[in-house]
């Protein structure tokens, strides 16, 4: 079965579905912005970048995506495949502002 790791366009489709957001066109792909309130009550925006200039995204792209969404890198495939936009927002809203700002891999 085809997955987002197979092509940048599939990854773009998966991120569109996961974020539930309309993308902003960029020179080499699309940007998605997910706005949430953190667990400690501060507004936060997570920006997700999907680059489509290469046909197949690298491992680094998926790791970067996981870091931005503050999910374990090893789970990014199942999250792209199975989470709803509501689940993503619930997850992000469960984190503190400092946790959301971090880019340390989980």
């Amino acid at each position, binding site marked *: 079965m085809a997955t987002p790791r197979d092509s940048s366009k599939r990854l773009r489709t998966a991120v569109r579905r996961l974020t539930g957001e309309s993308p902003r066109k*960029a*020179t080499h792909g699309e940007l998605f*912005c997910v706005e949430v309130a953190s667990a400690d009550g*501060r507004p936060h925006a997570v920006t997700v*970048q999907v*680059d489509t200039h*290469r046909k197949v995204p*690298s491992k*680094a*792209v998926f790791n970067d995506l996981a870091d931005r969404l503050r999910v374990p890198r090893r789970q990014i495939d199942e999250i792209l495949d199975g989470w709803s936009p509501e689940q993503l927002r619930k997850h992000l809203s469960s984190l503190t502002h400092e946790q959301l700002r971090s880019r340390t891999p989980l």
Partner: protein
Amino acid sequence: MSGSVSDHPVAASEQAAELGWVFVSGPDGDRQLSQATAWHEDGVYTLRSAEFDVIAEDEDFDVAIDIFVAWLIDYAALLAERVDSRKATEDEARTFAVLSARLFPLLREAEQEKRRHIRRRRAPSTGHWRHQETQANGSARLSVA
């Protein structure tokens, strides 16, 4: 602001990534855009900003730098829209202030250079990468981060 490279990263994984700066050369000299980590894994160069949510990759490091610069500009444009529409968070507004302070002089220089280029038919300015040169990390830049 198309790119050329003076120095390629040789680190073979993100864990061993090299720290450096992405610069853009203009008529008024080099200007730093972003601190970034860089590595070359499975035939692909990856540049990841250490300051902003920007990543770029390509088989050609010159191209990866150009794409990195383009993503930075696109990210700044997104932030500008959010600041203008009063949707920006505190973090975004702060990031936009930092990023725009670096980008706007470059864009102004690029525009001026473009005008000069049209008049003189000269080559456009170029971007490039430099390792962060300090005694502490210079000799150990390939060690595990």
